[in-house]
């Protein structure tokens, strides 16, 4: 199940673990990324709290946690090569995996059609 947030993150839910990344739209808006900082495995994230930082040549931007949960895995590949986020944001360039505190919270997020409406 693929879900989206108004902060331009996507979540793919498998069991109670969500893989989280930023959308193609967000990657396009940010431009060429040169730096990615991810949370540590084991970090407890809260919905809408800072989860990661991405930087383009021009500026730093925060990536927020879409829901409450614990980080179980991070994608070192995007730390090593931030340009992967520009080239494949919705697959290979996932950011982190989150073991959700309440799986049912996912229901409140947008589906793909709703997100597409949001970004026009």
């Amino acid at each position, binding site marked *: 199940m693929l879900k989206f947030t108004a902060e331009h993150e996507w979540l793919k839910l498998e069991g109670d673990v969500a893989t989280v990344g930023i959308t193609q739209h967000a990657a396009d808006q940010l*431009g060429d990324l*040169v*730096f990615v*900082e991810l949370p540590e495995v084991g970090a407890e994230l809260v919905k809408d709290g800072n989860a990661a930082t991405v930087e383009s*040549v*021009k500026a730093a931007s925060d990536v927020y946690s879409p829901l409450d949960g614990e980080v179980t895995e991070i994608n070192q590949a995007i730390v090593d090569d931030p340009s992967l986020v520009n080239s494949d944001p919705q697959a290979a360039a996932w950011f982190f995996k989150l073991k959700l505190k309440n799986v049912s919270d996912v229901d409140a997020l947008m589906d793909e059609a709703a997100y597409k409406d949001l970004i026009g």
Partner: protein
Amino acid sequence: MDDQAVLRTTPLHALHISLGAKMVPFAGYDMPVQYPLGVMKEHLHTRAAAGLFDVSHMGQVIVKAKSGEYADAALALEKLVPVDIRGLKEGRQRYGFFTDENGGILDDLMITNRGDHLLVVVNAACKDQDVAHMMANLTGCDVTLLEDRALIALQGPRAQAVLAELWAGVSAMKFMDVREVPLHDVPCIISRSGYSGEDGFEISVPEAHAVDVANALLEHPDCEAIGLGARDSLRLEAGLCLYGNDIDTTTSPIEASLEWALQKARKAGGDREGGFPGADRILGELANGTTRRRVGLKPEGKAPVRSHAKLFADAEGQTELGEVTSGTFGPSVEGPVAMGYLPVSHTGAGTTVYAEVRGKFLPMTVAALPFITPTYKR
């Protein structure tokens, strides 16, 4: 959208839109921050081939003495700027800055001897204030802001080849030469200078012909339109100051490591020693040094360290030293680069200091400027 409504536009505005630029407000103008190529590729293209930049937002100002004599205009401007303008030869350009009574910097500028007058180019954000400053202080001179000319910068190792398509004589120009030349029968003023660390030109074009000249240059396969984003990373790698970030009224030219811009004639023992605002402080600092200096800073990690990041002597953030004034990722350096002010005790190349970024203290090394090797045609 109210902010957008009051933004001014340059004569190339429609061209930027047609090229697919992302527009942002900058110094009161709606300006291209990047084109579809993106900041990274635009930066690298400029260093590898040629980039065209719209810098028409900058102020082009004529200073002409009522006597019609160059020397009178030059000596008048020397009362505001601590560089040798009287000694500037016809068709030559020089960097300088307006200083204030406290020895701070009001703006930085380029000054050209145009025979019987001076052509001065100032920053967009300061141009109204600069023109008022010159009108109030340049007695015996007419000061005219040229509102009907665009300014196009062409930068990069292929800039000469691109411009040669319009004017074969370009190869005879040297760094900081200025010539008045017709390009496609349009009278242009061309300087061999810029803000990228590369060889290149700045071309002053009558507004009505700006799009034609820009398109003629962009027709060359080596030439791409480049936005303000890459302009900033190019100038930072080249160690060049951005007014409002790296220099302002709180920094003296000596603190800013710009003493190279003061020629002998204006320094102690020179023919026209002092005689500019803040001369006591500035000449005093030349003789006795300053407590802090602008330096290059190379973050040791991959994280860019941006302007206003605080700098510390220790990794615990106990002893604050100063702050970063410009910082970004340098595409040609392939890593983050920055500039900032440090006490002279910490300005030796190789000194490690720590920048506070998102609650962490990241090591940075004091580095020689520029970060790249400039390719000016001297």
